[in-house]
């Protein structure tokens, strides 16, 4: 893997906007995710986090601007992208085994009669071992716990040796131990395989130790920011619409916690409708996207408009 340079970004958005069914989801998306990094996509429900992944995969077109993924327009590099959608429920009644699922990740797009080669079997085994499913490879997906099923889904995405891994809420519905093991898996992928990882997440706590940066969907605009800048109590409070506090422990770990003591009873919830938010401010200059001060001001503005 080459070292990250300005010209070698994994995902680049240039003044991108996306509409779904005629309504604006987000606009003025301007950011670049460097290769070899781990990036979280954060924002409230319905802010367009999954839509961002869909747009990067070229599954929905941009209504404005452009998206470049792995050096090519969105949708043209998908063979080099591993994609893990929210599979928790969809895998519940699947009778296919983890191994079969990984092999389909390798051969699933092949039309015609195709016998699984020794090389493909070897690759499937390698990936299953990496995610720690080697001993349960022949379990059906519906026999695996949520955490193991998530690892099976990641294994399927890894089968084709992707350069970029997109995950949609991989920690949702998992218990803390499973969340931790999935996070550890992502960290190993990043360190050992140099994988660029973009992960949609609701709860940043678990991911914090491995994050390089975050894309925050605030006021209807996706911005990229290094993780230190995102970890600002005020920004996170605006982002989630509830009081959030950043704590730095002696070990240097940072946690984001909702703090009841800091939240007055009468406080108005700062959540706002996404459609509304998408139109809050129309800043046309693509260079200004992504600073945390900008987001802060925007958040305050949004708050005023809400009251």
């Amino acid at each position: 893997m080459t070292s990250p340079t300005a010209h070698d970004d994994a995902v680049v958005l240039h003044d991108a906007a996306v509409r779904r069914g005629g309504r604006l989801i987000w606009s003025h998306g301007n950011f670049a995710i460097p290769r070899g990094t781990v990036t979280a996509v954060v924002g409230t429900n319905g802010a367009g986090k999954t839509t961002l992944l869909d747009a990067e995969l070229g599954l929905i077109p941009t209504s404005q601007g452009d998206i470049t993924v792995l050096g090519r327009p969105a949708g043209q590099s998908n063979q080099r992208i591993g994609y893990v959608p929210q599979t928790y429920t969809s895998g519940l009644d699947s009778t296919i085994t983890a191994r079969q699922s990984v092999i389909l990740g390798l051969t699933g797009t092949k039309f015609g009669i195709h016998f699984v080669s020794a090389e493909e079997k070897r690759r499937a085994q390698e990936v299953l071992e990496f995610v720690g499913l080697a001993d349960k490879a022949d379990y059906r997906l519906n026999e695996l716990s949520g955490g193991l099923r998530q690892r099976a889904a990641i294994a399927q995405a890894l089968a084709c040796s992707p350069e970029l891994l997109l995950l949609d809420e991989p920690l949702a519905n998992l218990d803390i131990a499973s969340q931790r093991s999935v996070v550890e898996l992502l960290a190993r992928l990043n360190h050992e395989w140099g994988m660029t990882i973009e992960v949609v997440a609701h709860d940043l706590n678990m991911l914090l130790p491995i994050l390089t940066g975050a894309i925050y969907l605030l006021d209807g605009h996706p911005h990229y920011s290094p993780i230190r800048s995102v970890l600002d109590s005020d920004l996170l409070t605006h982002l989630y619409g509830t009081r959030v506090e950043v704590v730095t422990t002696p070990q240097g770990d940072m946690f984001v916690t909702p703090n009841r003591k800091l939240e007055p009873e009468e406080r108005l919830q700062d959540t706002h409708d996404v459609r509304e938010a998408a139109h809050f401010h129309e800043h046309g200059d693509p260079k200004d996207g992504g600073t945390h001060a900008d987001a802060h001001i925007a958040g305050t503005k949004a708050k005023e408009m809400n009251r």
Partner: protein
Amino acid sequence: MTIQFAFDPEWMSVLTAPFMVNAIEAGLLIAVAAGIMGYFTITRHSTFAAHALAHIGLPGATGAVLLGLPVSLGLGAFALGGALVIGALGKKVSEREIATGTVLAFATGLGLFFARLSSSASQQMQSILFGSILTITDNQIVGFAIFDALLLVVVSLVYRPLLFSSLDEQVARAKGVPIGAMNVLFMAIMAGVITVAVPAVGTLLIFALVVTPAATASIVTRSPFAAIIVSCVLCLASIWGGLVLSAMFPTPPSFVIVTLSTAMWAIAKIVFRNR
């Protein structure tokens, strides 16, 4: 009234009668089609949609009799029409049980209405609803064989993308599998399977022939290919077993076929309940 399962000592001669030979041949061809597509129906979570197709075909079948056309033609045309609509609307729609169920009920009612318009359609109603494997003609067998050959060719060509898109539509779409085409193709083939299988057990019992053996196979095997083979074998065992038993103890073959299929599923469920 007493129920008699009297043993027929002449059952061997029944089994060698021309109508029975036709039924046995048809059974093999039906088992191949139902076994293969049954497995995909389960992995795609489209079992209810498949069941609905048989009912959507019912007014086509009785309507065809009304117009003096072959039952299979009307059944096939209506099932295909329904299949293309469901397929075009996407896989999510086949999981919409209320809409599918409502259309199913309406179609069944329409089938009854057409049947009542003529006495010949009325007479055929029972065999369309419950099957008449013993009346399958040589021409039908030729039709079944052609359909099976086509099915084998098409399925072997789309096997992996079809399976991949069954597992997770989003991922398959991102990887370039034409999801829309897969949906329409799957439903169209399903309409063909329904048309072939209805003469065996009828529109009402078809679930037990197309879906149940595949469900049993999914319980006892772990690879898709093995499940398809086992599904075909179980389907064949149900049909042939049903024919032999209904010859030995005169009963409607459809009843025995469905009973065997259900019993195998129940046994598999109990034996493998911990899996």
